[in-house]
């Protein structure tokens, strides 16, 4: 089944490209500390709103242009005409790979001793932090929340929906009332109300878990409803009846007979609904209720970009790059989900 899926996916260039892109992005998130030239919270107040540095190739090395602050009030930087080279696989700030292995090798570092010479691939923000670095570290949060959130949702949706559909009757009735109840409140309103209840200030790690739980608590309702419909139709199929006659336990019937028949649906639904979690986290962080400083997440970075208003008035367009990152991720998930659906069942309505 799995091999067949991959083979089919290979035949759809767009879907396969989306898969490759996503794998690359997740790899970048995992190896963020290796790819990033600076620590995510390192400030350099002399380099506020530094534009993306120009790169050029000469003598077999990559050179980075040096900029001068021509007009500090307007945040205008101009190239000074000088440049410094980049060193590959150089040692920089220490970190722990996978959170375990201590290391200090980075993909690239400026090969100068002058700390004022910094490389900003995507410019810098208000306090001179490297946007590229923060984008990579933000990807850890923004990308993983989708995966974890969707796993919780799918498990809950399967348990509630599957049980409701299988048992029917009173269980079904009350489960569906609960689902309707959750779906009757506009999603973001409920999200905000839940968020307000749970202590205002958490540490980043706790906040992360909190956001995942809140998003999953709201998200499972829709999934449960569809799974209920599917398991309702599976319940009367001969193989389920046979299993019942043989006296198999309910749990076993659910996991061994009903679940395998739902996997393809679950896979497609999961792929297509991961964007909702990424967007949900971004929206919460954007509103200042999610991930807090100095941690980075894409929504938080966008909200800072918006708060400054300098983005609008002075045109620091590079501060909007997290929005582009969200856009690319979401579009990749949508394309992949559509391709998977076409493979699994072209008539499936999602």
């Amino acid at each position, binding site marked *: 089944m799995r091999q067949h899926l991959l083979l089919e996916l290979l035949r759809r260039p767009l879907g396969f490209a989306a898969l490759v892109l996503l794998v690359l992005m997740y790899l970048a998130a995992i190896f963020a500390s290796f790819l990033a030239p600076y620590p995510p919270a390192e400030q350099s107040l002399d380099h506020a709103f530094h534009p993306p540095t120009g790169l050029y190739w000469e003598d077999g090395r990559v050179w980075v242009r040096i900029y001068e602050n021509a007009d500090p009030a307007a945040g205008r930087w101009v190239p000074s005409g000088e440049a410094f080279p980049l060193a590959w696989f150089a040692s920089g700030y220490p970190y722990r790979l996978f959170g375990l292995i201590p290391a200090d090798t980075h993909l690239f570092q400026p090969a100068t001793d002058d700390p004022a010479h910094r490389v900003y691939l995507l410019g810098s923000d208000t306090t001179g932090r490297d946007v590229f670095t923060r984008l990579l570290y933000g990807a850890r949060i923004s990308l993983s929340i989708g995966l974890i959130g969707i796993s919780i949702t799918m498990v809950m949706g399967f348990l509630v929906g599957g049980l409701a559909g299988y048992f029917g009757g009173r269980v079904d009735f009350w489960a569906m009332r609960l689902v309707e109840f959750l779906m*009757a*409140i506009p999603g973001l*309103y409920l999200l905000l109300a839940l968020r307000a209840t749970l202590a205002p200030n958490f540490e980043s790690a706790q906040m992360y878990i909190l956001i995942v739980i809140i998003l999953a608590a709201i998200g499972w309702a829709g999934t449960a409803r569809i799974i209920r419909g599917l398991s309702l139709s599976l319940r009367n199929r001969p193989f389920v009846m046979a299993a019942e006659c043989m006296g198999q336990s309910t749990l076993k019937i659910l996991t061994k007979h009903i679940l395998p028949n739902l996997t393809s649906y679950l896979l497609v639904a999961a792929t297509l609904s991961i964007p909702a979690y990424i967007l949900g986290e971004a929206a919460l962080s954007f509103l200042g209720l999610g991930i807090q400083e100095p941690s980075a997440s894409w929504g938080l970075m966008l909200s800072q*970009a918006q708060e400054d208003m300098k983005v609008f008035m002075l045109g620091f367009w590079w501060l909007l790059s997290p929005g582009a990152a969200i856009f690319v991720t*979401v579009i990749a998930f949508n394309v992949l989900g559509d391709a998977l659906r076409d493979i699994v069942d072209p008539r499936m309505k999602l």
Partner: protein
Amino acid sequence: MLSFIIRRCLTAVPLLLAIALLVFLLMYLAPGDFLTAARADRDTPRELVAQLEREFGLDEPWYVQYALWLGNLWPIGWNENAAHWWNRFEIDMDLGFSWSYKVPVVDLLATRIPATLLLSFTSIVFAWSIAIPLGVLAAIHKDSLFDRISALLAYAALSIPEFFLAVLAVFFAARSGWFPTGGLTSIEYEFLSPVGKFLDIAYHLILPTVVLGASMIAGMMRIMRANFLDYLRAEFVNTARAKGLPEGVVMFKHVLRNAINPLITAFGFAFSSLLSGALLVENIMNYPGLGQLVYDALLKQDQFVVMASVMMGALMLMLGNLLADLLLAWSDPRIRLESAA
């Protein structure tokens, strides 16, 4: 039809009560309340705080507070002092008092809900008026260059987060200076003629409408295209063509009328995401609607405002779904509402 509407309204009541209870509990469990700032303020006398606590029933257990709130909500009052007995009934809905705005919540909602409804309405009209023709064109010219480009654009529009689009729109407005960067009215609004007022609001509505409508267009266009294609292959279309009906009549009278149904059903769902999207867009574009209100109120723990706003959001959602069902029945006479309930 009427019995259907009544039944739907009746089933909505317990749901609304449950939502109110949930939001109430959430607000109750949240640390602090709307008097926290007053308590921390040294200039506010203790007695005043204590008196306010008593007045708002904050010293009571939560179920008493909830009952008090519900009791005040009951809209039909009895006024002993009225001149005639038929005047003694009075309609007065007390949703509480907004601590941060210092006005009754009802007054606050009365200005905010129309603004949000207006924005939702213009966005839906905008989305439909673009999505339907585009979807039809894409279906008629299936696999053409236009079809491919519109599919690509639909993907892009589906994937761009609303709040990012809103930020981009503000960016665009600020850079180009063609559009206002926020608000619903200009400063000189009060001095404008009625026509000028209308134009002023319309001018301010353009960007929020486009931002909010853009993501809907994509979804609706895809639904429209898929349905149109389904019905294009139907037998009755062959029959219509065989009868020698002009192609325009076949397309619009036979195919479009059938294909449009799911769009109307999607209206209910669209309304739900519209309210959530409006919350973000309103906050970014500084649009004085319900979403901005609920966000502010949550930050300030303005309990009654939050409860009323969430309730109103849920109510609007339910009414939207009801409206969608009624519209569907009106557009498609085959649908029987009684069985649909």
